[in-house]
């Protein structure tokens, strides 16, 4: 909301502060000033001059030489100015910037330069010019805001302007426009009066609301119009008044200036008054030409599905049953609260005007405007939910202005169809509770004085604060506490720390495990990535998922930003592969990334209960490293979070998006807790990754359920260990995992560790075979092992290996 300070001062005349002081003070009491702009910025040394004579320039066809009377503005009172402007004539009073002055912009009305344009005396085609006559654009405004300005030329001031006076003053430009951010609860502050009331309390100055007295003529409003509201749920009040003998003319200068400062283009007295009252009271109004209204009757009711209606912007609109319409005896004449109809539009030869000020259901207006794709100034106000009482005040104010500004006559009375108005709310005044909430020790008197300035009543006997209808946001003691806090000053409330029972600060176990995972991933060279939770359904094809893959049962967003963001991810790989591809395309070498993010698995579709949100620890890299690099990260992680049992890697993991021969499910304690593998080259192609990439995904709920930070010291061995090597030749199809399984199962209680120290496939070994060598280490905690112990254990192991079809080498 934009409003000129001069308009605020019309109701708070004693307000005196700098623009910055006003900004700071209003912001601290809750009416946030976003920015302010001085209208006289870069306007310097501009005075009213009167043209005494005009002569042709001797050397230029398009230039003229003017002599001006500048009064006291310049020494000697006379000034010669050369101009190319076509519209000036002798006797005109014009704004003149003199030597050393400044104007805000160029005559083309383009963007205003930050520091304005300096004006100096100079010669034009050999004739001296001691200043410049200004167009409205040069004064930083536009023809929109000054409708009387010529299309292209010097702005002509009214005859009443005083020669030699400050022209900026004469133009009403010594003013500042403030832009406010009004919070949605303060419907009353979407009006100049509302902001003025806040300003008055903020600066502790009296507030003077306009005195509304309507001088009516002899005719009766009820003889002109009748009103019937059929759908009272959508229209709680409908006020109608009639103005006769309308004389369309420009509105007065002060009204034009105030509207222009608010960003509203002045048009004529009737339109301007309607807009003025909308700004002043926050109540939109509509004016109809009474002669176009059949039966002189207004009926407010819902439209029928499929009805069409031509709005006054010339567009045909299709309506539905939830849209409220204003009708006359025969036809629709306006969409309630949004826009009037072409068929009842005011023209310049209107004789009699029907004013409408109503209170429509805000939510309904918002939804209707949205469905129509037609959001207007009026609908924007109505959708906030207006005060029904305000409608009557506003329509009376408009009629007062019609009469006072000579725009027409006002008939007697208001046709006011009003379903029951809400009674005024009352809240018990509990100063102790307010102090308890705020942590203050303020007196009841101080609180009551704040309420009084805000326009709240107080019934002493009942100890009740009476809430006026325009403050529908005040519902209970907490709201009253805020009013006290705002005007006592948030900054004056003390700063303390909560007392009371001590609590333990901590991360949840899940978050601690995640923290460990991040540390390990980073230790292993992986940097943390983040990607969106929603993605494209095309992801499934990119990842080669089969049509039956349950991962395709994704939760769909009904109003996504686009197809690419339309489903909630069920696999975490797309984000990772996309990020790897981004890096690959940018020629970044050896990229290792990890991510923590949920996947969303619906328990049923369509969704009837919350889905299973599973945190996934996703790792991916390309460049330096291979499958076993990734496997190492998983094992480091398992080690740190106490997964002490041996994880099993099952190559039959069945992931289409991974290399068929280089993938494994990670099985811990019999449960699949994740997978890893080399990305299938087809998938790499789909993502544009031109090299081998590796990924791993760990399903954190399964991991967290098995993790532990418990540690137990197992002693440091005192007795020596004995190691034996086993050298084997076996078919390639046997996995070393099978060998390790046998060593573990058969190694006995003295088995301490084992490690692979050589693996070879090649010409020295027979076709389809590989040679593998292990070192097995035995140790006993209580004694030195004897040869016999070791031989017995080794024999069991070797027998087992032979049973697998493994050939032992000496």
């Amino acid at each position, binding site marked *: 909301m934009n409003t000129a300070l001069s308009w605020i001062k019309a109701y708070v005349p004693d307000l005196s502060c700098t623009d910055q002081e006003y900004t700071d003070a209003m912001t*601290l009491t*809750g009416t946030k000033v976003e920015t302010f702009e001085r209208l006289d910025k870069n306007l310097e040394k501009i005075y009213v001059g009167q043209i005494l004579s005009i002569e042709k320039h001797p050397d230029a066809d398009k230039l003229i030489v003017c002599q001006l009377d500048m009064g006291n503005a310049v020494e000697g009172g006379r000034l010669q100015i050369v101009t190319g402007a076509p519209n000036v004539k002798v006797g005109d009073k014009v704004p003149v910037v003199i030597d050393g002055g400044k104007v805000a912009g160029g005559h083309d009305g383009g963007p205003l330069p930050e520091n304005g344009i300096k004006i100096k005396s100079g010669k034009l085609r050999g004739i001296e010019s001691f200043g410049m006559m200004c167009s409205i654009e040069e004064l930083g405004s536009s023809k929109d805001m000054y409708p009387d300005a010529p299309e292209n030329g010097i702005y002509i001031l009214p005859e009443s302007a005083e020669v030699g006076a400050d022209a900026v003053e004469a133009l009403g430009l010594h003013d500042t426009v403030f832009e406010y951010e009004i919070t949605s609860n303060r419907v009353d502050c979407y009006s100049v009066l509302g902001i003025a009331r806040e300003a008055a309390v903020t600066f502790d100055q009296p507030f003077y609301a306009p005195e509304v007295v309507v001088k009516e003529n002899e005719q009766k409003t009820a003889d002109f119009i009748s009103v019937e509201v059929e759908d009272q749920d959508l229209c709680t009040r409908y006020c109608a008044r009639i103005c006769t003998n309308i004389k369309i003319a420009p509105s007065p200068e002060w009204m034009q200036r105030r509207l222009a400062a608010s960003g509203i283009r002045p048009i004529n007295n009737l339109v301007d008054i309607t807009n003025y009252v909308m700004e002043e009271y926050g109540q939109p109004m509509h004016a109809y030409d009474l002669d176009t209204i059949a039966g002189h009757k207004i009926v407010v009711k819902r439209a029928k599905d499929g009805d069409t209606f031509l709005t006054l912007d010339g567009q045909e609109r299709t309506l539905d049953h939830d849209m409220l319409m204003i009708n006359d005896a025969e036809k629709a004449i306006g969409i309630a609260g949004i826009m009037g109809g072409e068929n009842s539009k005011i023209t310049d030869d209107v004789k009699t005007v029907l004013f409408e000020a109503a209170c429509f259901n805000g939510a309904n207006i*918002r939804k209707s405007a*949205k469905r129509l794709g037609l959001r207007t100034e009026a609908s924007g106000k109505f*959708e906030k939910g207006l005060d029904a009482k305000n409608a009557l005040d506003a329509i009376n104010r408009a009629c007062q202005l019609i009469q006072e500004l000579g725009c027409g006559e006002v008939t007697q009375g208001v046709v006011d169809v009003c379903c029951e108005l809400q009674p005024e709310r009352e809240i018990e005044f509990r100063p102790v509770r307010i102090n308890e909430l705020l*942590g*203050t020790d303020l007196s009841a008197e101080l609180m009551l004085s704040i309420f009084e300035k805000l326009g709240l009543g107080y019934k002493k006997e009942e100890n009740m604060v009476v809430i006026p209808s325009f403050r529908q946001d005040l519902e*209970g*003691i*907490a709201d009253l*506490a*805020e009013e006290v*806090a*705002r005007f006592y000053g*948030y900054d004056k*409330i*003390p700063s*303390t*720390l*909560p007392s*009371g*029972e*001590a*609590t333990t*600060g*901590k*991360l949840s176990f899940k*978050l601690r495990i995640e923290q460990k995972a991040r540390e390990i*991933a*980073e*230790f292993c*060279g*992986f*940097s*943390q*990535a*983040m*990607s*969106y*939770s*929603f993605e494209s359904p095309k992801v499934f094809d990119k990842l080669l998922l089969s049509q039956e893959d349950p991962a395709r049962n994704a*939760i769909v*967003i*009904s*109003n*996504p*930003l686009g197809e690419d963001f339309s489903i*909630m991810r069920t696999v975490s790989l797309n984000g990772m592969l996309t*990020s790897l591809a981004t*890096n690959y395309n*940018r020629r*970044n070498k*050896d990229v290792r*990334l990890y991510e923590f*993010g*949920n996947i969303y698995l619906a328990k049923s579709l369509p*969704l009837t209960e*919350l*889905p299973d*949100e599973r945190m996934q620890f996703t790792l991916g890299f390309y460049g330096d490293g291979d499958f076993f690099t990734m496997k190492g990260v998983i094992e480091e992680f398992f080690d740190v979070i106490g997964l002490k049992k041996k994880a099993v890697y099952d190559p039959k993991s069945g992931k289409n998006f991974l290399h068929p021969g280089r993938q494994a499910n990670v099985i811990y304690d019999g449960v699949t807790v994740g997978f890893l593998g080399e990305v299938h080259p087809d998938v790499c192609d789909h993502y544009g990754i031109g090299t081998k990439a590796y990924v791993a995904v760990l399903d954190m709920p399964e991991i967290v359920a098995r993790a532990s930070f418990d540690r137990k010291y197992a002693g440091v061995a005192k007795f020596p260990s004995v190691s034996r090597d086993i050298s084997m030749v076996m078919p390639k199809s046997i996995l070393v995992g099978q060998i390790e399984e046998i060593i573990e199962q058969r190694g006995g209680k003295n088995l301490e560790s084992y490690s692979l120290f050589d693996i070879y496939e090649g010409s020295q070994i027979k076709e389809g075979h590989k040679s593998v060598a292990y070192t097995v280490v035995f140790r006993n905690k209580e004694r030195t092992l004897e040869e016999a112990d070791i031989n017995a254990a080794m024999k069991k192991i070797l027998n087992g290996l032979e049973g697998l079809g493994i050939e032992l080498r000496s």
Partner: protein
Amino acid sequence: MKDRLQQIREDALRQIGSSASLEKLNEVRVSVLGKKGELTAVLKSMKDIAAEERPKFGQMVNDARAEIEHALEEAKAKMERRIRAEQMKAEVIDVTLPARRNKVGHRHPNTIAMEEVENIFIGMGYEVVEGPEIETDYYNFEALNIPADHPAKDEQDTFYINGDFLLRTQTSGTQVHEMERGKLPIRMIAPGRVFRSDEVDATHSPSFHQIEGLVIDKHITFADLKGTLAEFAKELFGEDTKVKFRPHHFNFTEPSAEMDVSCFKCGGKGCRFCKGTGWIEILGCGLVHPNVLKMSGIDPEAYSGFAFGIGLERIALLKYEIDDMRLLYENDIRFLRQF
């Protein structure tokens, strides 16, 4: 015999003096003091000496032995020092050659900022909890005193799955989950992902992070809210940070405020980060609305509390001077490596 001993002594000392290596010294040791050495031979021939002379002569042999041993040790030590010195000289390296680094990965700036915030509140006794990202209308809106027709529920702001389920637009729903657990007092923060229907640009993302805070206890005041958040701001942005509370409106708090901190880039003088105002808006907060307490089964007369919500990306962008929000979700390693 005496002369022989004298001879051996002098020869040994001379040889020690002229030995050029440790090996040579060892040879001298063996040839003089060894089992078959000359001095040992002299000792063996003691039996040929008169009994009364023996102690005196024995003493002389021992003295000679001690003298030779001492000379040997000294020469050895000297030689070892020399050799060490030569080795040091030979082993000089160019210390400006590049380092061999263990290539550790880097944490996402969002997480770094989040952990900083978490640690501050953990230190103040807050528990870190989480809530679901796909939420019901009830927890995201209704239980937070946002009525059915409220514009915040508009499709232009909220991603809906269907009428009942949506992507949470704020972490505030975790307040309700926590209050419903019924365990008082509460001091919690809840970091997490939230979603709003904003097109991606330099300052907007349809997915971002918030950190929700909630304290519920007896006698919690607006002054406590101010004190707690001022402390937080000092911890996060530095001891000299000032805070300013401005009245604002949120449906689920009353009174409500927005908190600005004095610009941590310019100290409040005004710069491009604070748009010349000297202040940076950092969070929204307020006393928990009595309706919210009631709906979650807490008596607003017996208990009160405060809540706050921090935009994580906002803090990360400001703190690390990141000028485009899109960088946070591109995962370019050259970006991530800077944190």
